[in-house]
């Protein structure tokens, strides 16, 4: 059974990009709420499917206006009558004329069971170009600016030649560069302190006449882009030389910065103008606004900190003390922008490279709501940034960019279910419908969300509510169904629709609890619960969120654990739940919920990524992976525990954000003694090399590039490792001293053992 389920889950994930917390669904509302972990799934709408070539026609939709579900393998088809019944609303629909030849043996792909996920290419409508609008901070150190300029110049060669590109630079002022002029470079300049309406911006840029390329499409020449009247956005192939020169001549912001001051940086206005520019020229066209900034906004709307260096940028402490003067206003500014951007189908990326904070806390909504990337680094002159940036333009096996734009995700449910909300890089489209739940989890109240930018790994958590009443039992063996319809603009500029239809059996909790338990996907559940927790953490006090998580965990243990009341030692969890408490333990310690030792920017950054990665990556974030390398055998995963830190091991830890290679004390001494250079110790050299190679592999694949830390016993950077491992040995349990097992961690944090002990105690207690 277990095997079956693991396979089933994996299969489903590979085919549909979906993982449910429960793979057998409790059939009544009441029971469902008692299951503690909600019925929910992680959906990766554009999961790469090597085996799924898109079909070159459009889906057939149910004719009921409130349903509009797509024809799918679960539908009942009357081949004689050329009718099909919608499995969501039971409406009977005529096939369109093109389906005249349909029969049992001549089925369209969407009716075949293996096409529970299918992608259609929409041929209608004009093709809009991809648009990349660089918004570049010029208040950088010379080195940084130079590196950034080179990266940007390099990126021109990576862009699709037909893509439109634009450049906005900012410092004390904001400059929108015109790219179509020769002999003189021309730019429009805006004051960095003044918020302008979209209308004003468009007037000032001379865009008042709607420049809608969409309406001038020339289907006859699909290759040629429609005429674009805006001189600010030009096809890369036309102006790459101009732009390269322009970038080359880009100077640091010339306005003097006196000692003790921060440079005046008008990020808020720059973004506002970028948004306004695209809004006026290419609404509802796939576009990326790529913001490169080297510091916090210090003036104008959206300023995060004043220009006095003696006043530091807000910390969590300030925020808790309500001492962050600019935070609320700035956040509001960026939220407004983010919503405008999202409603235009554009996205904002933020590449923030600075040693101090840059205001990601305030600006996070720009990326979070639009599906843009958020990258945080120390400097643009680091491989971390350079490679991350390069990776944005990576291509898939088809040679297409791994990016899609302007997606709309629609969720349809069968009658026993309603959709309660979604958590991920999306905004609500506020589409009410019969399948929208009144209870909200995450972004709710709608059955459609906009995801302005997504890539093959973008993953949303979608939460459902079982609404079937307890007294209206569902017939045995019947299945509930959910359909995800994702319409988007492919990087090839095609419009595409991906439809995923899944179904699960209903189960009666009373009689089939065992089965339901077995169908529990604890990994998905952990991530889904974590997303809920993180989502709450954005608006609630940290301790409250932790308490809520604890309570949920305890309730789950009470519900599914086997124990004798008041006897903690009797407590047992089945295999399907066994890892779950550990995930929660590490989640509690994670930077997603703990702000201690993190700046608000870092927290925002971590949360940003947590809310969009797929299950595997999310799990790594929750509970980092630790590999151990030694002469004792092949590399092996070891417990994320201080006991794993041994003198004769090399450890490789992947926290998603960091890759840490840690040399144990002995290894470190050997290395310092240079044994690896002696021919007779070549095996030591290999041992040293092995984790490096593995790390390289991870580095190559991951976006964003993790911070790469190479350290050893006693090294200052060893803190990255020490802060993550379960502190099973600390200065508080000295008995561990002297034993050969691992390194003590100087912390007051509870260890997993203590945590589990408490959990058991509470689970079995009748008091709670």
């Amino acid at each position, binding site marked *: 059974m277990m095997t079956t389920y693991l396979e089933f889950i994996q299969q489903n994930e590979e085919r549909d990009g979906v993982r449910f917390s429960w793979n057998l669904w409790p059939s009544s509302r009441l029971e469902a709420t008692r299951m503690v972990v909600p019925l929910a799934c992680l959906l990766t709408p554009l999961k790469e499917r090597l085996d799924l070539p898109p079909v070159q026609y459009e889906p057939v939709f149910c004719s009921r206006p409130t349903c509009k579900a797509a024809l799918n393998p679960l539908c009942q088809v009357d081949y004689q009558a050329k009718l099909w019944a919608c499995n969501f609303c039971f409406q009977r629909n005529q096939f369109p004329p093109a389906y005249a030849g349909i029969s049992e043996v001549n089925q369209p792909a969407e009716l075949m069971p293996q096409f529970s996920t299918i992608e259609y290419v929409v041929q209608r409508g004009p093709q809009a170009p991809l648009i990349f609008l660089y918004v570049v901070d010029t208040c950088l150190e010379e080195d940084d600016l130079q590196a950034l300029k080179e990266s940007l110049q390099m990126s021109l060669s990576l862009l699709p030649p037909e893509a439109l590109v634009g450049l906005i630079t900012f410092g004390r002022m904001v400059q929108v560069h015109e790219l179509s002029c020769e002999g*003189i470079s021309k730019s429009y300049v805006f004051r960095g302190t003044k918020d302008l309406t979209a209308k004003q911006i468009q007037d*000032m840029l001379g865009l008042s006449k709607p420049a809608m390329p969409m309406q001038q499409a020339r289907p006859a020449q699909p290759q040629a882009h429609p005429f674009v009247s805006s001189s600010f956005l030009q096809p890369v192939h036309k102006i790459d030389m101009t732009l390269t020169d322009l970038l080359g*001549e880009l100077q640091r912001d010339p306005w003097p910065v006196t000692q003790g001051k921060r440079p005046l940086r008008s990020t808020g206005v720059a973004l506002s103008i970028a948004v306004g520019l695209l809004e006026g020229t290419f609404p509802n066209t796939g576009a990326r606004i790529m913001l490169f900034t080297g510091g916090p906004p210090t003036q104008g709307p959206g300023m995060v900190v004043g220009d006095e260096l003696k006043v530091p940028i807000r910390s969590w402490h300030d925020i808790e003390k309500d001492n962050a003067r600019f935070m609320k206003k700035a956040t509001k500014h960026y939220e407004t922008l983010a919503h405008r951007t999202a409603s235009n189908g554009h996205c904002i990326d933020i590449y923030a490279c600075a040693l101090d904070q840059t205001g990601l806390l305030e600006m996070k909504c720009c990326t979070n709501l639009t599906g843009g990337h958020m990258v945080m680094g120390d400097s643009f002159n680091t491989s971390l940034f350079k490679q991350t940036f390069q990776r944005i333009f990576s291509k898939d096996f088809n040679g297409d960019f791994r990016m899609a734009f302007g997606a709309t995700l629609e969720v349809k449910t069968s009658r026993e279910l309603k959709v309660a909300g979604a958590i991920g890089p999306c905004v609500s489209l506020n589409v009410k419908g019969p399948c929208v739940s009144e209870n909200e989890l995450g972004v709710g109240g709608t059955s459609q969300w906009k995801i302005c930018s997504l890539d093959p790994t973008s993953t949303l958590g979608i939460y459902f509510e079982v609404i079937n009443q307890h007294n209206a039992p569902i017939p045995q063996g019947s299945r509930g169904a959910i359909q995800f319809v994702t319409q988007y603009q492919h990087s090839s500029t095609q419009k595409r629709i991906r439809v995923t239809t899944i179904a699960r059996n209903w189960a009666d909790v009373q009689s089939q609890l065992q089965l339901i338990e077995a169908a529990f996907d604890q990994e998905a559940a952990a991530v889904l619960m974590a997303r809920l927790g993180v989502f709450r953490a954005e608006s609630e006090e940290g301790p409250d969120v932790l308490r809520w998580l604890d309570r949920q965990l305890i309730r789950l243990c009470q519900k599914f654990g086997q124990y004798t009341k008041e006897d903690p030692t009797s407590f047992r969890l089945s295999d399907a739940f066994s890892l779950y408490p550990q995930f929660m333990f590490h989640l509690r310690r994670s930077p997603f919920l703990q702000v201690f030792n993190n700046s608000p920017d870092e927290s925002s950054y971590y949360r940003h990524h947590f809310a969009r990665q797929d299950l595997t990556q999310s799990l790594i974030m929750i509970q980092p992976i630790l590999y151990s390398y030694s002469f004792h055998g092949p590399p092996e995963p070891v417990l994320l525990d201080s006991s794993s830190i041994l003198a004769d091991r090399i450890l490789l830890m992947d926290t998603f954000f960091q890759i840490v290679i840690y040399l144990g004390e002995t290894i470190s001494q050997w290395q310092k003694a240079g044994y690896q250079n002696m021919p007779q110790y070549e095996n030591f050299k290999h041992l040293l090399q092995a984790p490096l190679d593995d790390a390289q592999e991870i580095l190559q694949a991951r976006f964003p590039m993790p911070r790469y830390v190479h350290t050893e016993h006693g090294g200052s950077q060893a803190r990255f490792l020490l802060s993550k491992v379960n502190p099973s040995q600390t200065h508080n349990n000295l008995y561990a001293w002297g034993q050969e097992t691992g390194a003590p961690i100087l912390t007051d944090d509870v260890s997993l053992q203590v945590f589990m002990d408490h959990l058991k105690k509470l689970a079995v207690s009748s008091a709670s």
Partner: protein
Amino acid sequence: MNVNQSAPPVPPFGQPQPVYPGYHQSSYGGQPGPAAPPTSYGTYNGPGPGYQQTPPLGMSRAPPSTGAPPTSTAQAPCGQAAYGQLGQGDIQNGPSSSTVPTQRLPGSQPFGSPLAPAVSQPAALQHYGPPPTSAQVTAQLAGMQISGAMAPAPPSAGLGYGPPTLLASASGSFSNSGPYGSYPQGQAPPVSQAQGHPGVQPPQRSAPPLASNFTSPTSGGPRMPSMTGSLPPGQGFGAPPMSQPNHVSSPPQALPPGTQMTGPQGPPPPMHSLQQPGYQLQQNGSFGPGRGPQPNYGTPYSGAPTFGSQPGPPQPLPPKRLDPDAIPSPQLNELPPQQKTRHRIDPDAIPSPIQVIEDDRNNRGSEPFVTGVRGQVPPLVTTNFLVKDQGNASPRYIRCTSYNIPCTSDMAKQAQVPLAAVIKPLAKLPPEEASPYVVDHGESGPLRCNRCKAYMCPFMQFIEGGRRFQCCFCSCVNDVPPQYFQHLDHTGRRVDAYDRPELSLGSYEFLATVDYCKNNKFPSPPAFIFMIDVSYNAIRTGLVRLLCEELKSLLDYLPREGGAEESAIHVGFVTYNKVLHFYNVKSSLAQPQMMVVSDVADMFVPLLDGFLVNVNESRAVITSLLDQIPEIFADTRETETVFAPVIQAGMEALKAAECAGKLFLFHTSLPIAEAPGKLKNRDDRKLINTDKEKTLFQPQTGVYQTLAKECVAQGCCVDLFLFPNQYVDVATLSVVPQLTGGSVYKYACFQVENDQERFLSDLRRDVQKIVGFDAVMRVRTSTGIRAVDFFGAFYMSNTTDVELAGLDANKTVTVEFKHDDRLNEESGALLQCALLYTSCAGQRRLRIHNLALNCCTQLADLYRNCETDTLINYMAKFAYRGVLNSPVKTVRDTLITQCAQILACYRKNCASPSSAGQLILPECMKLLPVYLNCVLKSDVLQPGAEVTTDDRAYVRQLVTSMDVAETNVFFYPRLLPLTKSPIESTTEPPAVRASEERLSNGDIYLLENGLNLFLWVGASVQQGVVQSLFNVPSFSQITTGLSVLPILDNPLSKKVRGLIDSLRAQRARYMKLTVVKQEDKLEMLFKNFLVEDKSLSGGESYVDFLCHMHKEIRQLLS
């Protein structure tokens, strides 16, 4: 005499008094005395310094006075010069003053010696004469007939004038102000008096005047001849009579005329019996000339029908009526039809500006004007003269309405003569005169009075052996800082007085210390920003291309200081239509960068580095930019423009660069684009002559004042070049240039072909001219008077500091003074104008001008030391400002009333009793009516139908910062006949009066007023002339409206073109030439400038106005 002359130069500073003694003797003993003076010189060493100055002065002015003394010592007071003149005049009138002659002779001698005027004594004398004579001009408007008769004498005309004035002076003598007065009394003191002791003498004069006057004339007489040469005609002037009338005795003689004046009484004229009944008016110098004309003028005018015909009758017709009604018309019949005007007044009999100018030139043009003596009236602005700074500022820097100020405010109120100084702090000096020395007092900065903050100047009195000095303005006693200490010589002067400009000169500069700088930081070199309208209109007319092309070379000629190799000035460029385009022309760029700022509502400067650059360093980029600007906008369709944001941008740019500077705006249209300072077309001719007319002169919105204020604070001066096709609201657009010390140039309907030369010439001059930036001017005065009102292009944030964002050599500030206490006759009244500014090279300096004036307790002294040109300058500015707040009619009435009051006060208090029917004018002010009439009928105060609202606003604004010379020619244009004088003569031909009657249809004339230049071609000009000037065979083939004369290789063509060039060179702005043919459409335009005639817009003719004025005066007197 020679000695004297030579002497003067030596001791520049001399304190007048000590020296005098010598003079006195000379003068007194005088009369014989000429010899004496020399001795006195010898004495120099002792008294030293004083001498020299005095002598010179004496020479010029004193002499006249001395001249007077001879006759009746005490009485002589009147300007000696006057006497001299009178003398001449008298001769004619002579009969009356038969006695005089004898005396005169002696008198004359004395003069001669003292004056000495070595060289052309006569000339010198005359010069003075006139001024002093200024005393009174009794204008008896009576018949011109006489003059007519005289006419024959034409040639002498010129001379003739001179004399008349002299006569006038005679009359003036009564009042002879202190300076001259001294002479009269002159017993001994004359000299000293001349220098300023007047005080004492005045009283005496009053009594003696009569006698003296007469006498003087006589004395003058003798000389006259020499001057005039054949002048016997001069006698004709009847001047003598005049003088008499004024004073007392005269009435009898001249009176007849007087009676005539009254018009009604006209009949009485017979009395005169004298030849000149009509002229009697002239008694005061001015008329004299008028009469003189008979002889002198006659000729020139003779051409005019009027005169010619009437010559005979006039005499009999003595009656001259000012009163229209009263006009007896015996003469009428005789008068030619043209003159039928109700009052038949001989235009030649009324004071002639041409004559006055000519006389002053002749009398005072040859001697340098030495400024050592307090209260000297300088030569007229129309006279070419050199100035020697010996302790007072040159008249090129400061001119006053009066050089003798009433001691009390009561007196001042009574006289109604405005006390004003027209100050041109950075005036350009001719190459012969040294520009002010720069004094560097090191870190301590200039030495100032602790209390009133006046700067060290020659009038400061060192006491206690030099350890302290007493402030000449507020009398505060200050310690002399040790490093400045110097011993005093036995006269109480510092030993180093001559080594220090601030102790010996009227004008000098101090290097300012950091305390005088904004933010306590030495200023950066200033910057020029060129801001070019690139809207459709500007592109279409070719303006932008022309301008860009010109700038490429013009940038090499930015003002430089001293011998600097390259200008320190940085330049920047902006173009604009509805939005602004800034350009980054940093030298390191491969190509210029354009930065567009569309946020006109909230203007700012988009770049710092690379906007203001050194021309040489960035030449390549700038050239590339200037090449590209016309291309970039070649296809523009944008017709809307903004204006305020442009200025704002320039100002912000300077602020960002932390420097002062100047914006050159080239603008074409009414700024109607949505932006601050947006204007609407509000031109409405219907408002003219209503109470709302003033709104046409007021700015539409307050935005520009606010903006100007910010500009001033930043030291941002704005020069505006307008190229309107239609109404652009100059009244509003010029607010900022006006308040920032900038200039406005207007080229209506600009076309490259026609206007290129004018525009480029103005532009070149404007760009190259030396400018002081971020200036503050403060005028300090002796306790007793106070500067209360200021006119000009500047801004004031308080009541004392004139703030000028920019100040060039042409900009003038007129300052009015009022009493707040009594002045002291002995110490006189001192003015110190201190100008703190940043030079073109970015050096912070203080320019100081000092001027000492006399004070008087007798009104006559005031009237004798006035300068009408300056008065007109003040009155025009006063009126032109008045139209902003009052209906134009009120303003005009105010002017007339004030003028009448001034003249009435004179008549009442200074002139000898005479018939009310006689118009008596002070010699110094005899041109006041004609000039004032010109002001009254100027476009601003009485617009013609073709004058646009913009034109009026433009002119109004121009006049505001004009200096005396400019207002003089602007209101009374120069009319030069071209073919009368010998072709080989290189000097400017003598001007004729601006009246159609003076035009001969066989001649060609040039007319200029500083802004316009017309070439009027008479219908019957010889074909040869036409051919050699226009290269066409006949009059009819001359293109009307031509603006360029063909370049032909013949003497006439060369001469005329040369003359045009030289006229243009004299004026601050390029005057566009318009060729006007007699009887052509364009002639109407031309006729507007014939200001002595009745104007189409209803302006009175000179004669009419004089009658009008007389009537007003009589009303006041009755």
